[in-house]
């Protein structure tokens, strides 16, 4: 499968995750979100940024528990809940946010 962003044709897996992390840029995330009727704001970007950094360091997607704790630290405790994350990413912070961030589909328990 492919995803076309600004004239670039990018390879994805059948569920829409990028095959190559290096294909990712912000336009890719925006295009994926727009297809789900989501307009990315700074709250979304904060989560995507964290996911990218975590993946780069550990080659793994973080579990939701780690994600919520990190968001609480950065944005305040009211935002560090899985309810907050589900409001941003209704299909699940793990799957949807990882996809927007260009990560492969999480295989670990997240």
């Amino acid at each position, binding site marked *: 499968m492919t995803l076309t962003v600004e004239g670039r044709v990018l390879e994805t897996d059948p569920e829409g995750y990028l095959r190559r992390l290096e294909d990712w840029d912000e336009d890719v995330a925006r295009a994926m979100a727009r297809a789900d009727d989501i307009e990315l704001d700074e709250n979304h970007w904060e989560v995507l940024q964290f996911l990218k950094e975590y993946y780069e*360091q550990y*080659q793994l997607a973080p579990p939701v528990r780690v994600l919520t704790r990190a968001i609480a630290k950065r944005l305040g405790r009211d935002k560090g809940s899985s309810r907050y994350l589900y409001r941003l990413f209704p299909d699940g912070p793990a799957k949807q946010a990882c996809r927007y961030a260009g990560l492969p589909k999480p295989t670990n328990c997240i």
Partner: protein
Amino acid sequence: MATPARKRFLWMSRRAPHGSVQAQEGLDALLMAVAFEQPVSVVFLDDGVYQLKRDQDPARIGRKNFCAGFPSLGIYDVHDIYAERESLALRGLREEDLLMPVRVVDSAALGALMEAHDVVMSF
């Protein structure tokens, strides 16, 4: 409802990282266990110590650098990570060759460690 009993797990990893999938499966299962908040210790011995070698670049052979995931264990409050001294020595590995700090223990201490855990998982 009664709280389920928490058992002390010892993860024992004995295989080289890229020659088979066993080492990676061990890490996947380990991350599963820690996600369920089980108290886990981890020990690397025999060729398993090669998983801790720093600067691995398995993209060169088309594989994922899953060993980069070990340093994330601290985030899950897994801090009891050991490597067997004899295994490191036989392979010419020093502590500064490793991708993260671990507790280096000798074989006798490792035997005692196994006795101190309820369940030993071998990968």
